[in-house]
């Protein structure tokens, strides 16, 4: 099962490698990992997408909690939550492709954020499947390069991860 684990961690050097090292040492899978400081600069928030049985996910949360720098851990996929990912795709945009690409961006509510004579950079945010859908909707031969952030997630409504 796919899980989205969110955690607050002291914003100290080496903290990230403690988390990633835990996953590699114990043979857990990391699908994506996103991290940045929060509004409280002393703390970073991480979103880890992982897969595993209930037992494995229980161990992952327990082991993460055990790290001295980890302040709080929740599995936000246990209840209603929102996930977002950001993708920047550079596509070839010449001739008739230029109009076509613009139309596709509109359909997906993406934004064209860089324009040259021959290319566009398209910015798209959404959950994983929306980004996947965009990639499969456009002509793959036109994609010059593409970069995606990891998943960033937050619980809906009253579910708040804060100290």
């Amino acid at each position, binding site marked *: 099962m796919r899980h989205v684990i969110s955690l607050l*961690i*002291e914003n100290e*050097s*080496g903290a990230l*490698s*403690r988390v990633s*090292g835990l996953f590699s*040492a114990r043979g857990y899978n990391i699908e994506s990992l996103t991290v940045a400081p929060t509004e409280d600069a002393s703390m970073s928030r991480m979103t880890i997408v992982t897969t595993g049985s209930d*037992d494995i996910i*229980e*161990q992952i949360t*327990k*082991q993460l*909690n*055990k790290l*001295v*720098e*980890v*302040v709080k851990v929740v599995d936000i996929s246990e209840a209603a939550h929102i996930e977002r990912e950001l993708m920047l795709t550079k596509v070839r945009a010449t001739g008739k492709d230029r109009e076509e690409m613009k139309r596709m961006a509109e359909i997906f509510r993406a934004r064209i954020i860089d324009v040259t004579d021959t290319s566009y950079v398209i910015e798209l945010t959404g959950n994983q499947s929306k980004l996947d859908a965009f990639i499969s909707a456009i002509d793959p031969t036109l994609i010059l390069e593409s970069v995606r952030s990891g998943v960033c997630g937050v619980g809906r409504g009253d579910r708040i991860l804060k*100290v």
Partner: protein
Amino acid sequence: MVLTGAEIVIRCLQEEKVDYVFGYPGGAVLYIYDALFNQDKVRHVLVRHEQAAVHAADGYARSTEKVGVALVTSGPGATNAVTGIATAYTDSIPVVIISGQVPTAAIGQDAFQEVDTVGITRPCVKHNFLVKDVRDIANTIKKAFYLAKTGRPGPVLVDIPKDVSAHKCEFEYPKEISMRSYNPVIKGHQGQIRKAVQLLLEAKRPMIYTGGGVVLANAAEQLTKLTRLLGFPITNTLMGLGGYPASDRQYLGMPGMHGTYEANMAMHYSDVLLAVGARFDDRVIGNPDHFAEEPRKIIHVDIDPSSISKRVRVDVPIVGDLKEVLEEMIRQLEAGAARPNPDALGAWWKQVDEWRSRECMKYKNSDEIIKPQFVIQKLWEVTGGDAIVTSDVGQHQMWASQYYRFDKPRRWLNSGGLGTMGVGLPYAMGAQLANPGAQVACVTGEASIQMNIQELSTCKQFRLPIKICNLNNRYLGMVRQWQQLFHGERYSESYMDSLPDFAKLAEAYGHVGLRIERPADVEGALREAFARKNDLVFLDFQIDQTENVYPMVQGGKGLTEMILSAEDL
């Protein structure tokens, strides 16, 4: 008061009431050694290899309730220490390791004797720090000691660059430490404890299974009281030996791979299992699938939530300090009128005693050749069962754990988790320094002792009257046993050729060496050794080469599939 970083390090150790530091000097820690030179509160023990420094600090901690301290230099000093650190980590031993690092400006420049110590040790410490500012030293060392000994104990490393130890700042030792991200649970959940007590009272085939946590939490007294109050059978793991008196009737011996028949059968066929400070290690329960075949309710008490439901499913988890939880269980039992059902318990004991009557620890003694079990039995008799016994890793370790009966905690020191050969002698050094009047015996084998034999030199310098009992069978005994049983008797590289004359070797280091070849001489040699109160005596027992450790549960098998003796093969 303005002090250098190095002086601050020493002042911190003084504040923590550290009496011994085990270490080895080098370039990156020269300022710290200079600061050591100018005081006499913290005594330094110069080992001959950094691995031994950490093991000795670890042995010191295991034999006391205190934190062990090791001091090593950067690069090779730190990498040599890693085996010691990993050993302490696996057995949750409180140790603080201070390592020197190249100057801050040189970090990352591939400087001479530079290694990423924090990176290398990260997976085998409870926590580690790189101190980049002299103003952080005091606070960091305070945190290190606090982390090492609270919650689930473990090794904590503090890496200090050379220039930081030379810089100066105002020294003030913090009184309190609070970390928002680190708050170990001490009190067990009341409701869960009530549920556990209820289950224990309803049990028909109860069993108590305890591990090293009982020793670490100093909860042996509470465990003994609870076990007697309930009248249940009890087993202590290799790490938990001495947590309950081995000579008591309710004690069934050790469980697991080389545990007793009665302990393993009672573990397997119990209907309620109370696990205290034990983690269902593969060496204890064998194959978890086999273990799960028999339906039973499990109550698991542990300070570390991640140990609960890691290998087996647990019905009543209780997170907390073992002493507190056991005390609360005793309180609830004593307050209530209910007692365990005497009929069910009587029938269960009848069954347990039937298992016990197999006398699985019997062995064939000989007048011709020394049997290792016999040596340990005699060691137990000669020391009155009250020695601190350290062991290395292998067959001798198992014989020592099986045939020396530990009635008190902190008398048995060995590397249970990591299984590190070479710990025995450094553990004995740490234990002897911490307990100057105690009889300290190191049970070892000719292969294990050679992994840190250079420490005979340290023992000479500090006049440590350790008794080394070398069970010498000229083989990597446990490897040979497995090769015999599971590899078609192909003894690949398990034979120890060209052994030194250990008696002479001991003499070369300035100690007393004895070579014992006949069973009739075993007791006399041990008596002579322990009578020499001020000497280290190296007893080189020439034992039966073919002796195996029984009973045995083969790796991957279930607890009830035991080989009781060579006849079972």
